[in-house]
């Protein structure tokens, strides 16, 4: 009744071997190599960027960023799903999974990065309250006018003792709001307030920094990344800081971002993801793909690997 099973290895002549000893030798080689590299080269570490540090080191950059969020012209404000309603930026005709995913992390930038922060700080600084009241009571065109005036004035602004000084103009309450926002951000209150109100963060478990990182994603992080040659057009994530090796195994992925149509199409990210899915399927199903599964037969590397076997059998 018992089926006789023959292990494929039993069909060939054998020689002594010791897999456990090989494993120990390999472990020794890997240990010396890895610990040696670690002790010689160490690892890079640049501390994270915070809103507090950004507002302190470059008050103008902070106010420009916050004004774009107030006016609704920042990249985040016009992103579409998953942050806000509106058309998905990534779509190939009707194929728009970004749209299908829906608004899952809803963000209204003017509320989240300006008005809600001011409201949260108003019990500590009651002078903020009339500013918010004046702004919210005004009609939308008036709000936009004040904001545009102030945003334009930032181009001619000066920083004195960490404060932004703009030429006199018709800014309504916006100038006062931005003065308040700047001091709130410089104190570190804005980082904390954003992370405290992020859904999922609760009490001692504050792990989700989406909201503060999305605020910083524009000018603040981009300027730093440009200086460190870490832009997507510089092979993005496949590069590490300085001369350290990065995740070079992602090079196929980041290579796609360097060439058309991926580098030029508005749905570039979606095209890259779909292509990488295709690449994985090809690798996974390689044994069954006619032509590709014959490549090893035509490139006789196998004859080098098994040269002793072939030498023995050609005698």
């Amino acid at each position, binding site marked *: 009744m018992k089926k006789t*099973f023959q292990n*494929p290895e039993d*069909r*060939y002549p054998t*020689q*002594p*071997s*010791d897999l*456990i000893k090989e*494993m120990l030798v*390999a472990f020794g*080689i*890997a*240990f010396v190599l*890895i610990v040696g*590299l*670690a002790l010689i*080269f*160490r*690892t890079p*570490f*640049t*501390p*994270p960027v915070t809103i507090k540090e950004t507002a302190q080191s470059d008050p103008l950059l902070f106010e420009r960023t916050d004004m774009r969020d107030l006016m609704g012209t920042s990249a985040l404000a016009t992103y579409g799903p*998953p942050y806000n309603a509106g058309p998905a930026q*990534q779509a190939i005709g009707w194929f728009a999974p*970004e*749209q299908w995913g829906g608004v*899952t*992390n809803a963000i209204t930038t003017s509320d989240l990065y300006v008005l809600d922060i001011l409201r949260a700080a108003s019990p500590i600084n009651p002078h903020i309250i009339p500013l918010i009241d004046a702004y919210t009571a005004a009609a939308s065109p008036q709000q936009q006018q004040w904001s545009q005036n102030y945003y334009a004035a930032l181009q001619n602004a000066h920083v004195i003792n960490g404060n932004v000084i703009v030429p006199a103009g018709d800014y309504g309450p916006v100038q006062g709001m931005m003065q308040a926002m700047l001091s709130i951000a410089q104190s570190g209150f804005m980082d904390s307030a954003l992370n405290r109100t992020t859904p999922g963060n609760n009490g001692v478990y504050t792990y*989700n*920094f*989406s909201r503060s*990182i999305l605020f*910083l*994603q524009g000018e603040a*992080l981009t300027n*730093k*990344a440009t200086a460190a040659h*870490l832009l997507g057009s510089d092979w993005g*994530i496949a590069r*590490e*800081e300085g001369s350290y090796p990065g*995740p070079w195994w992602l090079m196929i992925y980041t290579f796609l971002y360097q060439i058309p149509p991926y580098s030029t199409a508005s*749905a570039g*990210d*979606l095209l*890259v993801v779909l292509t990488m899915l295709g690449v*994985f399927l090809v690798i*996974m199903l*390689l044994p*069954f793909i006619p032509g590709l*599964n014959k490549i*090893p*037969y035509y490139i006789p590397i*196998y004859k080098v690997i*098994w040269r*002793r*076997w*072939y030498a023995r059998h050609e005698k």
Partner: protein
Amino acid sequence: MRAMNHPLMNLTKALRNKIEQELPMEHLLPDRLPIYVSSFVYMFGILTMASFILVILSGMTMAFEGPLWYQFSAAGAVMRSIHFWGVQVFFFFLFLHFFSVFFMAGWREGRAATWIIGSFLLLFSIVEAFTGFLTQGGFFAQWNQVQSKDAFNSIGISGFFNVLNNGQLYGLHISIIPAILVLLLIIHLTLIRQKGVVPPIEALKK
């Protein structure tokens, strides 16, 4: 009680019989291998696994001591460096293993499942390293979080997997994906021992 003798009536016995039949101990831990197994390329897989073990051990130490330790203490920085370079060495050997198995057409004669499991090991290793690079806690991680979010947003899964959520990345990196990798590795090794080392191309014709 006769029914208990039927193989399907005692699942424990059925499993034992299956293992004894398809993967006897002398094939699981062989002290003899076919004579064609004599090339340094056979070390690539073992070296990949050895590096993997070192990455796991350094990672477990880091998880035990916590991020403040590995970012701001001298001893922690050494362990972080071992973890970082361990991953570099791991991928170096992994790709040598991948290409050597490809040029040996290692999927031949019933070994396609071993190759497919291996391709998933490659995929999950990349995801594991990706979540690791994004949980470094520094500027590099922040920058690549905001850069890579667009790819995940483009396929509409950010409500399910949010690369900007450090808690989710950390959980995936230190628990879920390593567990998947270890499980896939056990299956991969079991299949290799069950099917035996792939013979040279056209070996039986000669």
